[in-house]
């Protein structure tokens, strides 16, 4: 076995040092009835690299990759170009194979990039502080609602109908067991809902999303003012973080907590994970934050260095009184984000966002010319909703047969709401060419 360095002679010599005859003696506390005499039957034995590579490559070959076809899916996961140097840096063993930086003197590499990551997240969201990341945007949203309940000591949350349905479900699941009241609004494909009137003196927070599931972009300044007037907080969710290169950030609107899915920067689609939850807030709320935080300090020689800090909020110190049970973050995904955003810089991040928007504008204009197709959005970033004359899920299947991945039918999330059956979410990024768009239009005209 290529990963096991002990030889039989090593094992014998070690057993003799230990003073037992066989390894079985070391397992003496295992109840006799539970001991297995040998390898578990019905499972294959070890294989060489070539055989494993062949097996997995065959599985991989049975998936249609985004890069191989005209591709327009989004809905919380986006196809972007990640520069080659990002992954090369991630593969450095000192990043890949290190643990949580509990020994800061030999973890300054991890700690410094986390400090840089936190700064980048605070800057792009327009917030004061950010943590070292959460599992993903959906779990970050649930944590944001819990944090709002700790701050306001209220137990009701209002979730926008534009919130990604998975984020809503994770929040309902997580907060439901704690007996909170979650007021989930019905889906809002037109982007016209007004939540301000729903806020009362029991409301801990309102959770809104921009761009919304349906692609609408919003300025929540008025909503933030209304919420604050009633002592409630506003959580702004961003599932397409590239939008922050172009749009007014939630921090400038008065958001109290901002949660983003950071996958778009640095991280591939990966069939849905691992992804990267960004979590930012106001400085005054920092001690109520979940998750790891990296802070600046000095070493014994007076040099600047970094450590994990404010860990008295966390489970390994506070146990059942912790702000969250979260233990890990999404370290490597955060590193990918930090490297990619460093490569983009001020100029590149803005340009990337403008390219995404421009491609979506062109796509929306082109699709609007197809007979029977209606674009529902006034304002959007790189994704919008179209209404088709036929059921969107059927259309998507037919287009997939033609080698085009056309978008996400809204019925994938809301199979029981007939009114939404004809809606399709369509995204365009910098990876879409004019040829892709022509192919989509031509194929749509055939199947509609």
């Amino acid at each position: 076995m290529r990963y096991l360095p002990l030889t039989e002679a090593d094992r014998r010599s070690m057993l003799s040092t230990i003073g037992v005859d066989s390894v079985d003696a070391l397992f003496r506390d295992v109840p006799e009835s539970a001991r297995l005499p040998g390898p578990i039957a019905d499972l294959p034995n070890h294989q060489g690299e070539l055989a494993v590579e062949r097996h997995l490559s065959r599985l991989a070959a049975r998936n249609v990759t985004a890069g191989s076809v005209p591709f327009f899916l989004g809905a919380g996961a986006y196809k972007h170009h990640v520069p080659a140097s990002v992954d090369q840096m991630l593969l450095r063993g000192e990043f890949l194979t290190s643990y949580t930086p509990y020994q800061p003197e030999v973890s300054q590499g991890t700690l410094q990039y986390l400090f840089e990551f936190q700064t980048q997240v605070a800057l792009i969201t327009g917030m004061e502080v950010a943590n070292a990341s959460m599992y993903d945007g959906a779990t970050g949203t649930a944590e944001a609602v819990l944090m709002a309940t700790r701050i306001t000591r209220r137990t009701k949350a209002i979730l926008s109908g534009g919130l990604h349905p998975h984020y809503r479900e994770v929040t309902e699941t997580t907060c439901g067991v704690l007996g909170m009241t979650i007021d989930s609004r019905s889906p809002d494909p037109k982007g016209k809902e007004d939540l301000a009137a729903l806020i009362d003196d029991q409301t801990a927070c309102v959770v809104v999303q921009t761009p919304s599931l349906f692609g609408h972009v919003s300025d929540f300044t008025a909503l933030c003012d209304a919420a604050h007037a009633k002592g409630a907080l506003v959580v702004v969710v961003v599932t397409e973080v590239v939008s922050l290169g172009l749009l007014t950030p939630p921090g400038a609107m008065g958001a109290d907590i901002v949660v983003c899915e950071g996958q778009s920067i640095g991280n591939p689609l990966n069939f849905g994970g691992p992804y990267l939850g960004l979590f930012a807030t106001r400085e005054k709320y920092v001690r109520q934050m979940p998750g790891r935080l990296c802070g600046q300090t000095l070493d014994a020689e007076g040099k600047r260095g970094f450590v994990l800090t404010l860990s008295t909020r966390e489970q390994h110190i506070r146990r059942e009184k912790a702000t969250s049970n979260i233990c890990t973050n999404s370290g490597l995904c955060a590193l990918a984000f930090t490297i990619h955003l460093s490569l983009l810089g001020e100029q590149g991040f803005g340009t990337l966002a403008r390219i995404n928007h421009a491609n979506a504008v062109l796509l929306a204009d082109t699709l609007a010319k197809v007979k029977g197709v209606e674009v529902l959005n006034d304002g959007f970033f790189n994704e919008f909703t179209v209404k088709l004359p036929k059921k969107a899920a059927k259309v998507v299947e037919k287009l997939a047969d033609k080698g085009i991945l056309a978008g996400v039918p809204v019925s994938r999330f809301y199979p029981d709401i007939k009114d939404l059956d004809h809606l399709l979410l369509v995204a365009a990024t910098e990876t879409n060419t004019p040829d892709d768009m022509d192919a989509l239009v031509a194929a749509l005209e055939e199947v509609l």
Partner: protein
Amino acid sequence: MSMNSQGRATAPHAASHAAATATDAGATFTGNKALNQEEALIFELGNPGVVGVDLPEPATAKTRLGAVKPRGAIGLPDLSEPQVVRHFTRLSQKNFGIDSTMYPLGSCTMKHNPRLNEKMARLPGFSDVHPLQPASTVQGALDLIDQLAHWLKTLTGMPAVAMSPGAGAHGELCGLMAIRAALAARGETHRTRVLVPESAHGTNPATAAFCGFTVDAIPAEENGRVSVEAVKAKLGDDVACIMLTNPNTCGLFEPQIKAIADAVHAAGGYFYCDGANYNAIVGRLRPADLGVDAMHINLHKTFSTPHGGGGPGSGPVVLSEALAPFAPLPFVVHGKDGFALVEHADDTKAKPFGRMKAFHGQMGMFVRALAYILSHGADGLRQVATDAVLNANYVLASLQDVMSAPFGGPCMHEALFDDTFLKGTGVTPLDFAKAMIDEGFHPMTMYFPLVVHGALLVEPTETESKGTLDQFIATLRYLADKAKAGDAAHFQAAPRLTPRRRLDETAAARKPVLRWTPPVPAPAAE
């Protein structure tokens, strides 16, 4: 010296300062020390006008932003690709990793991360696939999830597995939510108490509280185990479950585990097993045969997916017959047209308690874990547990005469020491650990588990050779002797040779600086 709640020093020793001055002989003009380069923050390296990516001009200047205004300047630094690559390369050189040295963190299972896993996870057929593509276009991905699920179920003997949790603690939450849902289905929502031994990981009580339960601690026995009597004394009709780590955090197998499981079941509760230490038993026994109802499996521990400086992890949860119907959405099923995903409660006869995460779980980690599992096979995985336990016992047997092992041997995959051997030396476990750093080893886990004073928990894993173990043992013997010989100053000033000396955690927490801010320009002289 200030201490945190675990009795750990949070600010450097004064002696450290004195020693620092003494090392100034190694000072250089740049502050660099050969391979060890000083590196500024990325924000201090930018140069406006430089780019690290070449992007075309947008295809149209037309915008459709509705009522939202374009944003102003953000303040990100501009760098070229060579500058970015050098920056992150230099940062990487300030880290220990498993690749560079033995990293024997107890409870963390820092084993070799095979590079085949990385190569496989980067196949476009896995990495460049969107989670919401039609099922007909992702049959290979769903098949992979199903194959990994089959391995996990067969290895553990459990009938079901929830694949979506994103980490171990997230898996704990999933397991407890399934228990909660099962209790509700039984009409027993009055069961709100969760039993957690004092030796448990902090995530256990935190998860129970996060799930709305109250936590009741079970005291540890003098031998580091949990006794069935102590559990029975706490049982009652308000107990939802027990959360028990096995092997436990002292590195010991719980010999009464079956009797404990039986007692909990008889009292109407469930048995949640923290599977963080599954590496010690994989392939040698099946948790199902111990009476487990739910157990998370850290793919980043037992199945070698990289820890990555703190994630991402993956924490699938195997479930018993009683809990299986409550597994969260989504899950893979065999449909009439191949594999399908169940994403809505209406599409199944089961009673899923909800959803843990967006999309379908940590696919990138599933690929790596399956590559690892197929490489080892049933025989190799059994050998993994065997060698992990052998290595830990070898360390324990080779050090227990100079260090102090509170529970003796044999142990499972971790060797636990306490600080008795340092008594009267003026050297703390922290000092001892920092001196190991100068010798080129990452320290073991310190001050955990809490049930032992000044704990030092060593988990070598199966991927360390005997040669490395012998060097590790010789180093610890040398350091233990040095401490006892009265050379406390050596330890208190350590580490001396790292990019940074001991860092002031107290100052960091007192006035947190959590982000870089541009320097304020000095006011112009009048």
